């Protein structure tokens, strides 16, 4: 066997070195609003007649992957696409509720591409690239056009025009929505476009197939190793370029709003093969989730942020006030967001709302079981708008809440608590969405690019679709045009054989341990550790403790895990265990990144770095950069490459939502 | 077009719906004709004779009647063949049942298949009994329908068979009429209640109308 899981002590891992800074992100120079046009114009094109000869692998079928696969196939490329679900329609983008931003300015409320650009850079706490964010804002308007043309049933007004609503962190109404199921509707649009290409024979779709490793030949990404989850067969697929659209890694925390099978294996394996990992510690904790009910909890359910438009968040003023909410008089309630941030009130960005909830709960004023919750109250909205109107806007969310908690939110205020929701970090990509492995692209949540240290609501759908429909198809074209002749590589190529052997060995090793703990028990353990020390607030002591524990858990995992069954069949325990292998490494990098970034910014709150009144204190002089980490081996210190962030248009200020 | 319709489950259902509605229209006329028995032998026999002379002098004697018979026979065959083929398809599509059984759908819905078979068998018996006269329990006299009906329903088993079949007919129409409307795309959320009411009224009227005859004979109102 060639796999020798490497164990090490934390001090060795934490002693990272700093390598060459990243000088060129390939963003064109010139005025920011002309850069995307320039990039497209300068891109080389592949002759339409030659496109059929190029094969592109797309892993994942969410908003980013689905839209990319469909668009590349429409352009004439041969696409091989993968998803672990039984159908491409089930990717977790489907669960996004609230909406999608676009600078259409249909409301005439002062919105513009410039404002969306500004809001997103500011919302990301000045840790995103201006060039990327501006491009995103520009493309946002085309996305809405595209989706409407596909038949996405956005909410409309009586005149037949599109309706919009406002979302956290902004003061204009630019969020397009389809009740509480915007992600579902957008995903079905992409899925339908993809289905058309599958039927046309332009996309070879492999459902229930999971990517387990990346094949890099002569320094270029040339294919993947994947496991057919039904038969257990390990297959290799080769192509001229590989696109990862495999989503985020929030499931490192065990409990998150991600789907149960969402995982980090594709991006982590790519990282191990040379792709740098950008800002791994930037995770978003969403403020409005349903609190957990007990140890059996397998996942957390988000309630759309749009609820904060009309719901008011409060806790009792007094500690340990256990009266039922309806018996607490108005003057004994603390509407703390409205008190602390009068101009944004309940609509402050997610990181701020989440931390404020944590603070009041830490003070002992939390509500519900274990004091881990705050009220989200619709009594005022129902009084003001009438129950019917509230039902129209949020009916399905209220139903969902009642189904899970058995409490009726029309009568009793909802209880909410923050939960891990989204990862701003991901594979480092340049302006072309290409990773540091040539030919390997990462799109959607899988990359780190556009949201900086905090993502604004309704921006994930925008980014996923921008990447898939518009950005990648243009930049991938350029890459393929510049690398027109790939040598064919077959299954007997030494690199392919080596990667396949490593994959098979890893799975066999997992089956061979035959220990006394279930895979889930390890997942739970690493998740709790990460939530405790790398969650909503982080400090040096905690992070060092986590860095000490993780290698121990990893060592124990390889000694004690028990995976029943064989590799030659549908084996969900094996799938799970193999994903945990990667979480146990990724968690370490997240903690190290959090440890090294001794500032507070966005979703990353370092307790050592706060203002006297407890707000996050950013340190622009020291940390205005993207941390791109290079892998050097399991448990061995990674190399940090810094990409300096330059702000020419939106000048960093301490964010204020007061 | 015929090919598309016949090859598709949706099309075949449309064939069933149209043929069923043709039979339903006929049954309404048939029932109204039957009720003439309460106005005496003269009127009833006269009506029966008229059926053979309708359309004269343009049509020859019995031509119209045969035309109706041909249309009806075609409807019966189309209805039965579609039903048979669809049923086979349905059973093949669901080869395995659940271990945990629970009652499903309404009674009228569940009895469509076997109800249809019963009605088919009844139809054969009914034709042999009162049209051909071969299985008629008493002496069958061609051209004297009133006498034939009275003698028929003077036998208990004729009554049992007939009344049972008419109850089955009622159930069949109850789901069938509503179902045909859905199949032909005539249903909607607002019209659903109206369609169900019409289906129930039709089922009730036809059953009552047809059953009135044997009951009339049994009670001596018709003799």
């Amino acid at each position, binding site marked *: 066997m060639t796999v020798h899981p490497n164990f090490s002590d934390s001090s060795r891992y934490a002693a990272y070195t700093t390598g060459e800074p990243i000088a060129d992100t390939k963003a064109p120079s010139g005025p920011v609003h002309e850069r995307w046009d320039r990039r497209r114009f300068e891109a080389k094109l592949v002759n339409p007649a030659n496109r059929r000869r190029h094969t592109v692998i797309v892993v994942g079928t969410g908003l980013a992957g689905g839209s990319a696969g469909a668009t590349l196939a429409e352009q004439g490329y041969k696409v091989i696409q993968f998803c672990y679900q039984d159908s491409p329609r089930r990717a977790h983008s489907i669960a996004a509720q609230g909406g999608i931003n676009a600078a259409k300015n249909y409301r005439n409320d002062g919105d513009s591409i410039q404002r969306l650009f500004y809001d997103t850079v500011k919302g990301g706490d000045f840790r995103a690239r201006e060039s990327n964010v501006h491009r995103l804002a520009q493309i946002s308007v085309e996305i809405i056009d595209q989706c409407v043309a596909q038949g996405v049933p956005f909410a409309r007004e009586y005149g037949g025009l599109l309706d919009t609503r406002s979302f956290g962190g902004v003061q204009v109404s630019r969020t397009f929505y389809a009740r509480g199921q915007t992600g579902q509707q957008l995903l079905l649009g992409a899925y339908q476009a993809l289905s058309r290409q599958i039927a046309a024979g332009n996309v070879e779709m492999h459902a229930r197939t999971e990517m387990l490793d990346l094949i890099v030949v002569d320094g270029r990404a040339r294919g993947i190793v994947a496991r057919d989850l039904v038969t257990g067969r390990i297959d290799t697929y080769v192509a001229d370029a590989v696109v990862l659209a495999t989503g985020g890694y929030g499931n490192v925390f065990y409990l998150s709003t991600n789907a149960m099978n969402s995982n980090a294996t594709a991006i982590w394996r790519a990282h191990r093969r040379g792709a740098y990992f950008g800002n791994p510690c930037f995770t978003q904790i969403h403020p409005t989730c349903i609190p957990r*009910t007990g140890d059996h909890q397998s996942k957390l359910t988000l309630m759309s942020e749009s609820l904060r438009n009309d719901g008011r968040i409060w806790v009792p003023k007094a500690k340990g006030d256990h009266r039922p909410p309806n018996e607490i008089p108005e003057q004994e309630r603390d509407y703390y967001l409205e008190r602390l941030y009068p101009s944004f009130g309940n609509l402050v960005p997610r990181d701020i709302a989440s931390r404020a909830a944590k603070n009041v709960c830490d003070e002992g004023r939390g509500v519900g079981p274990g004091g881990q919750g705050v009220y989200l109250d619709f009594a005022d909205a129902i009084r003001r708008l009438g129950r019917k109107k509230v039902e129209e806007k949020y009916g399905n969310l209220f139903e969902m809440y009642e*189904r899970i908690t058995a409490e009726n939110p029309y009568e009793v205020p909802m209880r909410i608590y923050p939960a891990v929701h989204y990862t701003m970090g991901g594979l480092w990509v340049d302006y072309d969405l290409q990773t540091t492995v040539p030919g390997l692209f990462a799109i959607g949540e899988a990359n780190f690019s556009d949201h900086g240290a905090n993502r604004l609501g309704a921006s994930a759908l925008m980014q996923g679709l921008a990447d898939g429909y518009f950005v990648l198809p243009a930049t991938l074209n350029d890459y393929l045009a510049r690398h027109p002749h790939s040598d064919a590589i077959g299954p007997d190529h030494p690199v392919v054989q080596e990667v396949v052997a490593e994959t098979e060995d890893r799975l066999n090793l997992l089956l061979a341990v035959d220990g006394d703990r279930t895979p889930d028990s390890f997942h739970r353990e690493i998740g709790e550790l990460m939530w405790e020390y790398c969650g909503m607030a982080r400090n040096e002591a905690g992070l060092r403790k986590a860095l000490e524990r993780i290698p121990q858990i990893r060592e124990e995992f390889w000694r004690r895990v028990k995976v029943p069954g064989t590799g030659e069949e549908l084996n969900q325990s094996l799938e799970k265990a193999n994903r945990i292998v990667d979480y146990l490494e990724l968690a370490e990098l997240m903690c190290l990144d959090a440890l090294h970034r001794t500032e507070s910014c966005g979703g990353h709150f370092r307790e050592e770095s706060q203002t006297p009144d407890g707000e996050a204190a950013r340190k622009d002089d020291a940390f205005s950069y993207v941390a791109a980490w290079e892998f050097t081996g399991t448990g061995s210190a990674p190399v940090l490459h810094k990409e300096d962030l330059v702000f020419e248009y939106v000048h960093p200020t301490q964010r204020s939502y007061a | 077009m015929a090919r598309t319709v016949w090859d598709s489950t949706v099309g075949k259902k449309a064939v069933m719906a149209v043929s069923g509605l043709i039979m339903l229209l006929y049954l309404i006329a048939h029932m109204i004709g039957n009720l003439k028995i309460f106005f005496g032998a003269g009127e009833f026999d006269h009506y029966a004779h008229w059926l053979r002379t309708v359309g004269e002098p343009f049509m020859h004697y019995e031509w119209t009647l045969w035309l109706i018979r041909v249309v009806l026979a075609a409807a019966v065959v189309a209805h039965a063949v579609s039903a048979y083929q669809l049923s086979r398809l349905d059973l093949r599509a669901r080869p395995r049942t659940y271990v945990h059984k629970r009652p499903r759908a309404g009674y009228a819905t569940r009895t469509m298949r076997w109800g249809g078979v019963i009605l088919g068998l009844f139809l054969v018996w009914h034709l042999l009994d009162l049209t051909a006269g071969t299985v008629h329990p008493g002496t069958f006299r061609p051209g004297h329908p009133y006498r034939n009906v009275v003698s028929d329903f003077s036998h208990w088993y004729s009554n049992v068979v007939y009344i049972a079949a008419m109850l089955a007919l009622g159930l069949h129409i109850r789901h069938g009429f509503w179902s045909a409307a859905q199949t032909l795309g005539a249903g909607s959320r607002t019209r659903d209640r109206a369609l169900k009411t019409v289906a129930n009224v039709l089922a009730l009227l036809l059953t009552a109308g047809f059953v009135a005859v044997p009951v009339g004979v049994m009670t001596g109102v018709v003799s």
Partner: protein
Amino acid sequence: MKLTLRVWRQKNAGAEGHMSTYEVDGISPDMSFLEMLDTLNERLILQGEEPVAFDHDCREGICGACSLVINGEAHGPERTTTCQLHMRSFEDGDVIDVEPWRAAAFPVIKDLVVDRSAFDRIIQAGGYITAPTGSAPEAHATPVPKADADYAFEHAECIGCGACVAACPNGAAMLFTSAKVNHLNVLPQGAPERETRVLDMVAQMDAEGFGGCTLTGECATACPKGIPLTSITHMNKEWLRATRKAARR
């Protein structure tokens, strides 16, 4: 709570299956049905037995992966998905039967996992609007009456779970197919392919081996998203209209 589960176990597509009985204890009413199965599986793994395989992913009622027939009902006694069914819907001491979707077009892969790729092929046959990226007109160029937009949305809500097929005594996929046909056919953007869409999708549905519709209404009762039975009626109308128009051409 303490419960007795009788679960369908089947090694693979070719193997014979059977119902196996398991006792589970310490079940909280706040658990979801799948969390209850997680509890059972954790125990089975430690006992060296193979855990029960079942499809699941988002666990918030929207991805459509979960697919269990519980006590003879698709998704169990509440009108929701299996993942959103909570144990408070059961009583201490209950015996619960858990089976996979049953339909010829949904062959069992293992235990409670079935192959629903037939649904994907129905969509591939025409469940889309041809609008290649980049070709879209300005979104406000074509207003859509609110009633039509709402109608489209109500049908677009289908999550493709297959409960309609599982509940139908004929294993028919009419509710699934009609939901997509109606979603796209009512919109002005869907008009150019209105006829081919319904004809091709119905033809594919038949080719996959789904049964015909006898309007028992079981599908609409089982649908966790409340797609109404009239959806089928409207598709029938679309189909007949398309057939007439195709004949005239």
